[in-house]
């Protein structure tokens, strides 16, 4: 989240799209409800009518996988009717920047597409530079190559008629949404977008998010109270684990994983440290060398010296994609032979689970670390599998739950909240830290005796005390970082250096655990003087306790807040500076530096040349879709990886005419082990079900409560039918298309059992992130007899 949970209450309009916040983030509705009590409007955009839609002022049904088209029509309406915030756009975004005249877009493809490689050469996706190497601007926004004109041209194609034919949403509803949400373009109004996996789990997931961000920028809704682009994360600490580099392509603090071509530290820093010739650009990532060297010092401390590139060579250089789908493909192919699976249940939660379960069967060994014996840990007990034929050796390590160990959890709002241990873990159950500590110590011992490239492990700085339970405070301090010349904790990332005199396990968390103590453990319920719910001394948030990021964009160039009644920061003069509000996004006087300090051009990008699939979001159909793309001849995202190996079947509308999607319900959580083992929650939702419209049920002779078979190109499952008005067929250019929905929580273990919806989902991912397309695929249904 650019903002945070409590801040939702400051919104004048809330759009929940690609999220079912009422069901999956119920506490968020405390703040949604408060905003609505104060007069805010709620818009719910979803293929089905959910418990979120039940509370909304306006519900807009859109077919799964058509967010870019829907937002496209909204943006087009806002541009055509001048609802955008021009002052904000010119001062804070790249709207006035001039783009290389070679850049173009034709029939679904941007310039530079290589059909064979399925990649773009992005050399034309660049700004025009002046003689000093600074991007050229035209603040009148009239130049045909300025971002504003390109944007208008691109979005003029997203007409109401066209978009209604793609999404299935009636044109008048799209207009009502555009008007209602567009009203937040007024200077002192704000609108927030809450999104989740309904947005991201598509082959165009990243561009879905981007389209929301662009809408927010057009309306001046970023950096302000009650605004922002807010990802509602799926697990309590998934934000923390992302920050700490759970994903393969990043190191802690979103530093890039060294790529194969970054052979030396110098090369790495050369490639990944952005430069700007504009003196008004803070270009924050220019500090990359300080953060990278401090990270290497945190890893290898004394061994890391200038002479040995601070042990840069100990880091693996990534030459391939190691995301979830790729790993399971490699397991299936026998390339990966062992798996440590901590707190994850891919046998239920992965895409194309039929294949993923088969991949597990090919492993030599599996270590499962979890609270319960999950479907993954016990994959060999799958009723459809003969355990005699499986040779995998499985180790089950019982893990402590969050209440049974001390540590921090970083929520979606970036708040790092320290938790004490409430109860001791039962029996032999151990904390993750204990388990990792033992594995690491054992590895060190083994590698000390030799092996392939033992140095990174042997020399790893690893000392968390002598006690049975490793000292989690020492971990938190290491993450914050030290001044190695004094041995004191660093106060902030401004103090980090690239000469090896500082360490930091994650520069973004610098300032979280200082000589003043553990900031995340603070529990002062006093609000800041501006009274917008920042609570600055309650826990701690990254970066440097800034609760609303990009907050310099909440003020005009004189430092006056656009919304004086809910100001975030304001300039109070050269002596008192930015006093009384949030930690500003850089303390420079207003107008001295641009507001979007993480971009080298200092402005928020409406033209996003960093992405794999284009600088503007463009609608493409999901990999499995019942219709032709009416926007262009490019049927699917031209840059996605399409797997065509064994068990990677792709269905067509001829055999599978019905659209399907998956989701969660309030009563269960993720792959279900924490809820399907709790009798009180099992009571609430005991069985797997499939939701469908009355018209589909009638056509297939299915009644409420019947058992139904759902089939895709990959596998089939059985579930109880929920026949409901909450699902309606989508009318696309005169023809009706049915969509069904499936909760994905169930599996063959635990108290509540049922078929896993992910047996049906395809093995295909987003072009930028490889997140699987769980949210739109094709199926057929029939009544299960007997």
């Amino acid at each position: 989240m650019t903002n945070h949970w409590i801040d939702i209450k400051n919104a004048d309009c809330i759009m929940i799209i690609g999220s079912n916040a009422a069901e999956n983030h119920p506490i968020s509705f405390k703040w949604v409800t408060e905003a609505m009590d104060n007069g805010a409007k709620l818009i719910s955009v979803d293929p089905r009518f959910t418990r979120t839609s039940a509370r909304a002022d306006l519900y807009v049904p859109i077919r799964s996988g058509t967010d870019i088209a829907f937002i496209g029509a909204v943006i087009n309406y806002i541009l055509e009717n001048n609802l955008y915030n021009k002052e904000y756009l010119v001062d804070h975004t790249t709207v006035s920047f001039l783009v290389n005249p070679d850049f173009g877009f034709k029939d679904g493809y941007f310039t530079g597409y290589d059909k064979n490689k399925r990649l773009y050469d992005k050399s034309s996706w660049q700004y025009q530079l002046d003689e000093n190497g600074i991007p050229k601007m035209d603040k009148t926004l009239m130049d045909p190559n300025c971002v504003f004109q390109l944007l208008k041209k691109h979005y003029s194609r997203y007409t109401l008629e066209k978009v209604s034919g793609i999404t299935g949403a009636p044109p008048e509803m799209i207009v009502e949404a555009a008007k209602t949400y567009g009203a937040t373009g007024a200077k002192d109004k704000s609108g927030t977008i809450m999104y989740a996996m309904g947005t991201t789990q598509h082959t165009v997931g990243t561009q879905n998010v981007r389209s929301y961000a662009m809408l927010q920028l057009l309306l001046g809704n970023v950096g302000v109270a009650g605004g922002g682009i807010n990802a509602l994360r799926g697990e309590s600490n998934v934000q923390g684990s992302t920050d700490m580099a759970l994903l393969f392509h990043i190191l802690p603090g979103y530093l890039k994983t060294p790529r194969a071509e970054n052979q030396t530290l110098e090369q790495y820093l050369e490639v990944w440290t952005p430069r700007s010739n504009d003196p008004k650009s803070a270009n924050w990532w220019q500090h990359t060398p300080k953060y990278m060297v401090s990270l290497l010092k945190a890893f290898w401390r004394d061994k890391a010296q200038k002479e040995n590139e601070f042990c840069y060579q100990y880091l693996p250089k990534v030459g391939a994609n190691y995301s979830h789908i790729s790993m399971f493909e490699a397991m299936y192919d026998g390339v990966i032979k062992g798996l440590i699976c901590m707190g994850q249940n891919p046998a239920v939660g992965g895409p194309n689970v039929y294949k993923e379960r088969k991949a597990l069967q090919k492993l030599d060994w599996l270590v499962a670390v979890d609270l319960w014996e999950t479907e993954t840990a016990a994959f060999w007990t799958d009723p459809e599998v003969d355990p005699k034929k499986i040779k995998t050796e499985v180790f089950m390590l019982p893990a402590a739950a969050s209440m049974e160990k001390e540590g921090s959890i970083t929520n979606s709002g970036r708040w790092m909240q320290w938790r004490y241990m409430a109860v001791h873990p039962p029996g032999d159950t151990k904390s993750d830290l204990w388990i990792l500590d033992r594995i690491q110590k054992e590895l060190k011992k083994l590698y000390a005796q030799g092996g392939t490239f033992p140095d990174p492990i042997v020399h790893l700085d690893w000392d968390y005390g002598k006690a049975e339970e490793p000292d989690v405070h020492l971990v938190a301090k290491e993450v914050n970082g030290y001044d190695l010349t004094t041995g004191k904790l660093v106060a902030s990332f401004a103090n980090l250096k690239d000469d090896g005199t500082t360490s930091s396990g994650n520069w973004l968390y610098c300032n979280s655990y200082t000589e003043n103590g553990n900031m995340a453990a603070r529990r002062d319920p006093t609000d800041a003087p501006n009274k917008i719910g920042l609570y600055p001394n309650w826990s701690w948030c990254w970066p440097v306790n800034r609760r609303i990021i990009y907050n310099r964009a909440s003020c005009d160039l004189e430092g006056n807040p656009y919304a004086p009644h809910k100001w975030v920061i304001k300039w109070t003069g050269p002596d008192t500076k930015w006093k009384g509000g949030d930690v500003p996004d850089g303390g420079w006087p207003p107008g001295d530096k641009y507001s979007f300090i993480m971009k080298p051009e200092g402005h928020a990008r409406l033209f996003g040349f960093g992405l794999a699939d284009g600088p503007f979001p463009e609608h493409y159909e999901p990999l499995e879709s019942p219709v032709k793309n009416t926007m262009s001849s490019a049927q699917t995202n031209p840059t996605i990886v399409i797997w065509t190996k064994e068990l990677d079947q792709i269905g067509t509308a001829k055999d599978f005419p019905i659209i399907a999607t998956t989701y969660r319900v309030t009563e269960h959580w993720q792959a279900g082990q924490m809820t399907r083992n709790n009798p009180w929650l099992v009571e609430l939702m005991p069985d797997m079900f499939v939701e469908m419209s009355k018209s589909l049920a009638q056509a297939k002779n299915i009644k409420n409560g019947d058992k139904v078979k759902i089939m895709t190109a990959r596998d089939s499952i059985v579930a109880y039918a929920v026949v409901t008005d909450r699902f309606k067929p989508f009318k696309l250019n005169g023809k009706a298309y049915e969509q069904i929905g499936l909760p994905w929580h169930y599996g063959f273990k635990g108290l509540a059992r049922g078929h896993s919806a992910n047996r049906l989902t395809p093995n295909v991912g987003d072009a930028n992130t490889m997140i699987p397309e769980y949210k739109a695929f094709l199926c057929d249904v029939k009544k299960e007899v007997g």
Partner: protein
Amino acid sequence: MAEKGILFDMEKCIACRACQVACKQWNELPAEKTTFFAAAGGYQNPIGLSPKTYTLVKFYEVEKDNRLRWLFRVQRCFHCVDPACVKACPVSPKAMTHLKDQGIVYVNKDLCIGCGACHEYCPWNTPQIDDTIGKSTKCTFCVDRVTNGLEPACAKACTTGAITFGDYDKIKMMAQKASDRLKKKGRNPVIYGEKELETGMHKIYVLPEPLDFYPDLPKSPKVSEDLGFFHELLKPLGKLTLTAALVGMVLAKIKEKKNKDKLVSKEEEG
């Protein structure tokens, strides 16, 4: 302690069912063995109140005038100002205990004989008899929390502020405000519980739609007129030790008579 009340503002409910689970947790009630419940669209479970379930969220899916509404109602004892269940309770001292000053009605299980008169005479048939122990059960208003200065478990767990606990006067005022807010939005809200049964109940609903949206909620709840007759019949038995079986016979007799009356009136109509 002042008279207490609870407001249920349906428009704010997201059916997260935290109240339903928190009720079980505080009252140490076991889970029921449930299966997919088709009649309520698969979302509601269990089917109804029971000795294991004092609080239940009910789901209503209604499409009218091309507008779909999905409504969620927290069902449990209303804690009437003048509770019929207390009047009906035949044992002395009464097992159905009324803390008038606080507005709380709860079952004293040491005194209860499980006869079912409270169930029979409750306008909503809320109390449920636990046959395994022969006792009546229902929402206690978390008497053990409230009399110790805590709010009831359901109100504490409520995620959105749909359930609010407080002094009864304040709760009634809040109900009015919630209703006014809905009227401003062009809705036809109903306050249910302030004037019902003439003296009202301590748990008040503000319902965003008219009463015909909730078919299982009696539009004008009434206490059966034969409550006096029931006590008449019990009087001669009073010398004996009352048992559930004895009271059950009396209740059965009344029912039999009622059915006969109904038949007669039907014949007359015919």
